[in-house]
């Protein structure tokens, strides 16, 4: 199984590169995960990651993309509540990429 080294600590990853143990997440781990996705974290990226983490803490799931855009538009401003904005930040798919960096479980892949 693959591991990710951050500050001298080994973090187990699953076969798709998601953090195996959600409790091990911190901002340095997030930065290292972002690197595996070739994503340069800016404030706008963090905004989405933090949003996902808060959403997960409250509802125990990552929202589907349509719900995510709606909820982000409501919380962070209308101009950010669309798929175009999110795909610019996370080109390989906000649901998958942003969830990975946020340390959330991988989406089950039904949609």
């Amino acid at each position, binding site marked *: 199984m693959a591991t990710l080294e951050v500050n001298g600590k080994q973090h187990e990853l699953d076969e798709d590169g998601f953090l195996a143990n959600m409790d091990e997440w911190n901002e340095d781990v997030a930065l290292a995960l972002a690197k595996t996705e070739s994503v340069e974290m800016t404030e706008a990226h963090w905004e989405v990651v933090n949003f996902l983490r808060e959403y997960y803490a409250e509802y125990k799931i990552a929202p589907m993309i349509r719900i995510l855009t709606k909820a982000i538009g409501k919380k962070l401003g209308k101009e950010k509540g669309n798929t175009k904005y999110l795909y610019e930040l996370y080109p390989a798919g906000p649901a998958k990429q942003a969830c990975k960096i946020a340390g959330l479980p991988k989406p089950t892949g*039904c949609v």
Partner: protein
Amino acid sequence: MKFGILVQEGPYNHQASDSAYNFIQAALEKGHEITGVFFYNDGVINTTKLMDIPADDRHISKRWSDLGAKGIQLIVCVAAAKRRGINPDVLIENARIDGLGQLSELCIESDRLITFGD
């Protein structure tokens, strides 16, 4: 009439997959159409080709595969399949792994959705 079929229980453990299969045979004989069979919950276990069954019993996964060969689509829910170790490597022929959106399609396309579960 167009029937969509939902199978929610595993083979041999429960009568649901036998009942579903028999229902489909009867419906086809009467000239009805089967829009597709969707496997969910433990129903996904119906579609593993790793089943090894003594000759004096019915071979449930082979039976489904033969039905698929006749052009009836067999859809296996990806999330339920992953949970139970069903992937394309072990999937029977003539079935496909797909999303729950396909169940939604089946509901829309069919006059009736018939559920076989517990």
